[in-house]
Each structure stands twice: as C-alpha cells, then as structure tokens.
C-alpha cells in the first residue's frame, strides 16, 4: 500500500463540440493508509476520478502516482488496486469461493491450496464462511456486499477503491456496514479511496474528506475542518445536515441587513471590506431561540426525539433551525433567535469564497492529531477555489 498522488488530473469525454469536462485539474494527495472520502453531488466527477485512479479510464492529461511509481499509462490490471463496485459486480456463474479466489488465481502464481486458505481466512474475517459454496444470486444484498469486499481484501492491493458500495443497502444495514468498513480499514491499514454522495457517510467515515463539484476539487480536509472552515459557500452548504442557512445581506459599515428583521453588527469589518453585499451563513445548530432577538415566523416543527427541527421564515427567506426538544413553537407563531458571531459564516457574493468561517475556539482535528498516522503534515489542503487566508480573525464570543 502506498500513497496516491493526483497531479493536475484532467478527464474529458467526447470530442469536438460535445466535449464534457468531467474532471478538471485535480491535485490530490492521499496518504499511505488513509481513508479518503470523495464526496459531492451527482455528476461532480468523483466517480470519474475514482475510475481514473483505478485505471478504468485514461486521463486526458495529468499524472497519477502510487508512491514513486507513475501509473498514469498503466492499465487497471497492472496497477494492483482492488475495487468494490456499487452493485458489487460479482461473477454470477462462480460461487463465492471462486469469486473470492479469482483475483489471486489470475494475478499470482499461488497454488490452489494456498489460494483456498486465503479465501477461507478472508471469508472468516467477514463472517461469510458459510456462503462459500453459494452463487451470488442466492445471497442477500448485504452478503453480496461482503463478498465484493472480500474479493478486494484478499488481493492485498496497493489501494482499495470503493464506488458508493453502501448505496444499495437499506438504512440499517448501511450504518452497520459503515462501522464495519472503518474497523476493517483500520485493521488492514490499506490506503482507501471511497466515493459517496452522502455527506453524512463522508463525515462519519473519512480520515479526510475531498469535496468535489462540477469536476473540480473544492476542498480537502478532515471532517471538522470541512465543517468549520469551508472554503466556499458550496462546501458550507454541502456539508452539514440540515444544510446551512445562507442569505444575502447588504453591507453598511459594520452592519449587515438581511431579509426580514435581520440586522447585525459585526465586530470587525475586515471580512466584508469593500463589499456592498455579502452572503451570510448560519448553521441550523447555531440558531438559539431567545426572547428578544431577530424575528422568525414558524412554518413547520418536526419533532425528532432528541431535538426538534424548526422550519421558519425570516422575511422571504426560509430558515432551518435545530432546537432543544423542549422548545415547541407551533406553526403560525413568532419566535426570535440569536447566534454567536463566532459561528457566523460570511461568503463573497460573487465568487462564493468564504470570507469568515466558524471560529469558536474549537481547534479542528488535523491529521496530526489522529493517532496512527505516520509522518503526516498538517495542511487543510484547500482546493483551487480557496478564498483569502483568514485565520487571523478572532471571533468575539458573546
């Protein structure tokens, strides 16, 4: 296993007037043994990027290296990677045993007994020893998934590549497999690139998350980094559930005037210097209901058990808030809210780049602070759309 480096990787499909730029100049470094999640909305290029790493697609330009080995021109079968597909792609006419052993049979010269032994070991590791004689179509979705996983594990490859492997499972099974996958990955310590469109999954599983949109890499960082310190509005919106509330506000000195009654005085004008309008972002979890704050009209209240989701309007703008379960404003009522300035996000109205992000004293975990990572450097790996450096702002905690 080794680290994977993507160097200005670019992938175009089609030719002439119908060219589609699926992946645009992606620079990414995945550390040895890391679990990196590629996440983004449909069509953002994450699967294509994965397939380029796998060798199933040729890059149009750029370089892919495993460690010091330049693999860009190598075919998939020469790269020593293993892939878990979204719909498992198990060989239908082979039983589980042969499915598992197939890769070894083809790419190594091990004798059948040795292969069989490894098959049994992996099957035991995944709890599927009893299924060895069955064919894929006799298995449930979860079982097929494990076989697909086993097929990858048994090859002991340089990297695991996973393309939305949990999407076809039901919710309960999915969260169960999520934890199993993470445990496995830690045990095996294999570099893993994992693609998903589900940001919750991404946040839960990845050592680091790489957010993509429209073919470009937006930001790479730990879950916390991406959450607290998004590089632009897109990342802020994509990460976090429910999504961050964002609206336009006019800038007047230090005062921000937004929809409805929203009017707020910043303690510093640096972030919005020179701008006439700005995009204001407040995460639902940072909205606190108070007695005399900014007015909201309540639309819907969703009781979630451990908390309540409040859907309200601020003037014409819809706002979501996560509030205490004891708080139950009814539709039609008016409430008011406040928030910490430290939790406020500000974005450039034109570029979307973040001008101010959450600075409430919590130091985001960096790869350094995660045990078991060797020789990692602490960077927050911003993508090309990064905004100006803003780590000088100290939010005042009210």
């Amino acid at each position, binding site marked *: 296993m080794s680290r994977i480096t993507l160097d200005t990787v670019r992938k175009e499909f089609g030719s002439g007037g119908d060219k589609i730029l699926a992946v645009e100049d992606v620079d990414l470094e995945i550390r040895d043994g890391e679990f990196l999640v590629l996440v983004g909305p449909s069509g953002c290029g994450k699967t294509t990027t994965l397939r380029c790493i*796998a*060798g*199933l697609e040729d890059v149009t330009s750029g370089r892919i290296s495993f460690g010091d080995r330049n693999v860009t021109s190598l*075919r*998939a*079968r020469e790269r020593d*990677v*293993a*892939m878990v*597909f979204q*719909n498992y*792609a*198990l*060989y*239908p*006419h*082979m039983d589980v045993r042969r499915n598992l052993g*197939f*890769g070894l049979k*083809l*790419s190594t010269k091990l004798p059948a007994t040795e292969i069989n032994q490894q098959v049994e070991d992996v099957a035991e590791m995944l709890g599927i020893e009893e299924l060895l004689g069955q*064919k894929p*179509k006799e298995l449930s979705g979860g079982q097929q998934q494990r076989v697909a996983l086993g*097929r990858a594990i048994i*090859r002991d490859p340089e990297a695991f590549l996973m393309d939305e492997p949990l999407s076809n499972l039901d919710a309960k099974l999915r969260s169960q497999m999520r934890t199993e996958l993470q445990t496995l990955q830690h045990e095996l310590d294999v570099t893993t690139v994992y693609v998903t469109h589900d940001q919750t999954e991404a946040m839960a599983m990845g050592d680091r998350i790489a957010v993509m949109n429209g073919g470009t890499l937006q930001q790479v960082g730990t879950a916390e980094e991406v959450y607290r310190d998004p590089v632009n509005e897109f990342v802020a919106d994509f990460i976090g559930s429910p999504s961050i509330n964002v609206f336009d506000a006019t800038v007047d000195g230090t005062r921000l005037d937004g929809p409805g009654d929203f009017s707020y005085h910043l303690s510093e004008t640096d972030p919005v210097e020179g701008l006439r309008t700005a995009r204001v972002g407040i995460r639902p979890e940072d909205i606190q209901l108070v007695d005399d704050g900014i007015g909201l009209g309540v639309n819907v209240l969703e009781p979630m058990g451990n908390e309540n989701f409040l859907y309200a309007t601020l003037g014409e703008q819809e706002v979501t808030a996560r509030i205490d379960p004891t708080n139950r404003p009814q539709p039609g009522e008016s409430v008011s809210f406040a928030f910490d300035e430290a939790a406020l996000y500000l974005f450039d109205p034109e570029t979307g780049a973040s001008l101010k992000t959450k600075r409430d004293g919590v130091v985001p975990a960096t790869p350094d602070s995660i045990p078991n990572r060797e020789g990692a450097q602490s960077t927050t790996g911003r993508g090309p759309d990064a905004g100006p450096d803003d780590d000088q702002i100290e939010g005042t905690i009210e």
Partner: protein
Amino acid sequence: MATRDSLPGPDPSVRDRLRFARQSVGELIPTPGEGIVGYVFLLPAFVLFGTFLAFPIVYTFYLSFFRFNGVGNETLLWIDTGFFSYKLTSIADLEFVGLANYAAMFSDSLFHQALFNTTFILVVQVPLMVALALLFAVALDASFVRLRGLFRTVLALPVSANLVAYSTVFLLMMQDAGLVNYLLTSVGLPAIPWLTSSFWSRMTIVGAVTWRWTGYNMIILLAGLQNIPQQLYEAAEIDGATRIQKFRYVTVPQLRPVLLFVFVTSTIGTFKLFSEPVIINGGGAPLDSTITIVQYIYQAAFIDFRLGYASALTYVLIAIVSVLSAIQLNVGGESDA
C-alpha cells in the same frame, strides 16, 4: 358479530338462505364472459393447427406402420340430404405391415448414406459456423470498432437471400470453371473438384450453409454479448484478467444460454437441410455424397411413393433430432441454473 335480528321484515335467516340459493344457481349457469371469448379468438388458429399440424403429426406416426397403396377411395362417411351431399373418403389406401418399415431401414444403404452425409455436415458445419458467428460478434462488439452498424448490416445480408436462389450461385461458383477455382488458381493453388468429389461436394454444402447462416447467428450472439454488464469486465480487469482471460471467464459463461440456443437451433437446422443439397445435386454433384436425410425422405415419398416407409423415416429423424437436442441442452445447461 352484528346480526340483523332486530330489523323488521321476513325472518333474516330466510332472507339469507334465499340470497344464498340465488347465488348458487347463478354460479352454475355459464355466463358468456371471458371464458368463451378466449376460445373464439383462438378458434381459427386452433382449427388450422389441428387439421394441418396436429393431425399430420399423428397421422405420420400412424402411417409408418402401413404400406401405402395409393390414394384412398373408400368412402368413410356419406351424407346425402337431397340437395346437399358430402362424401368423406379415406385419404389413403393402406395395408398394415407392423414394424416392417422400421426394419427395412437397417438394410437401406442409401438411407445410411444420407445419415452419414447429414452427420458429416453437422459435425463440420455447426461448430465452424458458431465459432465464426461468435468471433464476428465479439469483433463487432469491441469498443474501438467504427462503422459497426455498416459491418453488421453487411454480415447479416445473407439472411435475406432465398434458400434456393443462393444455392444456385454456389453451384455456379463451385463449378470446375467457376469463380472459386479461378481465384484459387490465380494465387497458385490447385483447382478443387468442388462438385464432383464426394468429399468436396459436402464441403460445398458446408460452405454454402455457413455463408448463409453465420450472419443470422452472429446477430443473436451479438445481442447476447451486449447484455453482459460492462462492470463484470471491469471487475475482471481489476482482478488482473487479460483480454483472453476476460473472454474465457466472463464472456463465455455469460453467453452460455445464448450459445446453447444457437447450437441447438443450428443442429436442428442441419437436419432439415433440403434446398441446398437438392440444387447442388441438380447441378451435377454426386447424389450419394450429398443426399441429406430430408432429401431422401422426399425421394422415398414422392418419387418412389413409398409413403409408409417415408413416414417411418420421418419419425426416426424426429427422434434423432429430439435426442440430440436433449443431449445438447443437458450438457450445455448444467452447472448453471
């Protein structure tokens, strides 16, 4: 349970019993509904099927135990109502001979020859054609091939050629002075006695039939190929499979049912061979080496007028085809649900 005991009117149990009785009677009467309509739609086809397909099947079997002595004259049924009369005569004048027809087959050397010829053609032509069809299908399926539609059209063209008509051109091409020998000699190879040698005349038929049907089977195999999920190939690639290994471990197993189908239908088709050998024979090829089973049955039935014997031959042919098909289905279908 709620009852209606408290309601005014006749005793509720009487009411219920009346209703029940009414319903039971109703069920007994067949209503013109779906049941009959189905039959109506089916009727013309069924009548024709029964008369012209079902009856002959049974009658051929029946006939195989008799000797044919001429078209029938015996009146089986006669209706005369004055201004309308109908006379149903037996269709054949028969003499019961038991298993004599079947026994006669054992000493019929021309029949054995026909069996041999047909088997020879089967053994050579079917594997050759299926292999070619498969290779063409795989070739056309390859992603880098342009003009795939054009090539597919060209290779499938023979499908539209009339069986008899196309046989004539092969007859012509394979003449001693024909096109094929010309091409052979112009590159220094010796001319081949396509239509006179017993071996080569069979090969002529093999060639003709292959030309005619490869495109057809290629289309079927191509469709089967395109049904194989791309991801299986990708998984195999990642597992380290070379092109040939992918073919062996993904393509062929996935294609198995289709391949089997093509094999079985081609086998059945070989046993039905009639047009090609007749034309090639008519053009002078030795009868002995090219006569096929169906051709022989034709000769026995309509030239020698030994209808009983021909019927027996027909049933033997049916038996052979059925057994072969069953074997192929068994061998091909196992180890795969």
